[in-house]
């Protein structure tokens, strides 16, 4: 059983999202670069989406540097997770200007800017 550990990213997901089984658990240091790779369809995107909070598996642990983002009792919504997420698909907001899109981010982070 994995637990939140400072200095580590602890991940354990079990279940299935639209046929993709992100049945995985691992622990990587919270510093540096870690990459998850595998053949198409093995669930790398599903794992990334689970970490981002875009998908929610009923059983799972996601703890970043000692901070629990998801376990049996908690689930932090995606907009409160400090991540940068680049999707495979084009994700530009064509109705917003270059100035407005980062503004989307700024307007929201002003409140927790002190915390970060």
């Amino acid at each position, binding site marked *: 059983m994995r637990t939140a550990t400072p200095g580590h990213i602890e991940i354990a997901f079990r279940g299935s999202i639209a046929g993709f089984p992100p049945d995985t658990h691992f622990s990587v240091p919270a510093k540096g670069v870690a990459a998850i790779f595998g053949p198409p369809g093995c669930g790398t995107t599903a794992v990334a989406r689970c970490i981002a909070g875009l998908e929610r598996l009923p059983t799972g642990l996601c703890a970043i540097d000692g901070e629990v983002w998801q376990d049996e009792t908690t689930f932090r919504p995606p907009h409160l997770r400090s991540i940068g997420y680049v*999707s495979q698909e084009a994700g530009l907001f064509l*109705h917003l200007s270059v100035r407005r899109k980062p503004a*989307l981010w700024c307007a929201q982070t002003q409140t927790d800017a002190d915390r970060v």
Partner: protein
Amino acid sequence: MDSLSPEIWQSLGLTIELASVTTVILLIVGTPLAWWLARSKSLWTEAVATIIALPLVLPPTVLGFYLLALLGPNGPVDLLASLWGGRTLAFTFAGLVVGSVLSALPLVVEPIRSAFAAVGDRPLEIAATLRASPLYAFFTVALPLARPGLLTAAVLGFAHTISTFGVVVMIGGNIPGRTKVLSAFLFDFVQESRWREASWLAGAMAMFAVAVVLTLTLIDKYSRRRST
């Protein structure tokens, strides 16, 4: 045009006022409803969608009859209102608004719902990863992307309220200056064999309808060009 009594201008004002108030209420009520219908996976959406769509297939007089039974004198709403000295909604402007909102609701909810459905999950997910709260993402991402649907809904809601007849006659009681809208005026002209006035009014309303359909086509064309 001197034979057209000032009453008809009063009626025109009333009709436009009714359509404007109704459209605003329709958008305020219809947008969250359409959002929920487009995004919820609950089975209740089917039931709610069915109830909302009913006025499309019900004869307007049937809807008007039930509203009258509900809101009219000695109806449940009237009894409730009388507890704190309220008055019946039947034969009042407020009653007209209630009737118009219900009968135009399916026409307003559907374009907004399909616009939200077309926006899809992706832009909202990206907004969430950019730290936009769900409410903030709704106003900065979902609503702007669904704007053509909202415009179509507003035009349809406004036009449908102008053209509605059965419901407003049933619940409004056709009182000159208070609840007598243009379509009811036309009916009275015909009944009194005032064909000249009737043809003026009918012609004007037909022109308005053409303008509405043209507007809808232009909205559609404009939004298609924007999205490609």
